[in-house]
């Protein structure tokens, strides 16, 4: 362990990165799924 180094900035950065990346991935996957399913419904109606 690096003596005298404040660990909290590293912890906060790791958690923030994980939450943002995972949240972004979930939001993008759901939006892409909804858009694709809407395209399929539109192609059915035409």
């Amino acid at each position, binding site marked *: 362990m*690096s003596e005298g*180094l404040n660990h*909290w900035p*590293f912890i906060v950065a790791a958690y923030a990165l994980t939450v943002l990346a995972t949240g972004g*991935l*979930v939001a993008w996957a*759901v939006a892409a*799924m909804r*858009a694709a399913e809407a395209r399929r419904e539109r192609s059915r109606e035409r």
Partner: protein
Amino acid sequence: MHGYANPARFLRLAKLLTAPLLIGGGLLAVAVLAWALAAAPAERLQGDSVKILFVHVPTAWLAMGGWSAIAIASLSELVWRHPLAGVAARAVALPGAVFAALCLATGSLWGRPAWGTWWVWDGRLTSMLVLLFLYLAYIALADAATRDGQGQSRIPAIFGLVGAVNIPIIHYSVLWWNSLHQPPSITAGKSEMAAPFLIGLMASTLAFSLLFGGVVLARMRAILADTQAEARLRRRAMNAADV
């Protein structure tokens, strides 16, 4: 498994499971990460930096598990021609790449306070970086196959199988070569971790696994919907040309 080879039957199940997996995983992740930040104990040697364990290890396991799933799906696609296997493999690739990148980034953020360095070119870190590149190459190959109208192309499946060689290399790298990275703390049926760390790690792994599963189902639904819409439009265009 072949009962779910029918896309209509699979879609019914996927529609039932996607939201519960994402919502359940999200709530559990928020609870576990809040507990880890506020109440998880510091470790004797690593101090507070050990809290990074609760995000680093699940992302590492899921990145490796993701490629194992790609390899199994690729085998099903090549040998048994399972109609959803290729879709499943393509759906796993992007979340797998994101989790591999997160594993490397959080590992680097843990390495600086724990080892005094952001990065070392040792077996574990390098093989994990190779896994990220494999994911990126797989995504490029699968996209190219889809764009060229060869959604059933075998090249991504063969690449998925060949890339699986890297998984045991990642796992055993800390035993085969000298490394700053610690050897596995959890092996089959045995753990060297204190109870609070082990329980917290299992809970965060469950939370991220639910999220990973929800994203894979959402991706599969999107790929299937796009394929069905495109097939319908193509059929209509051919009918119009015949008339």
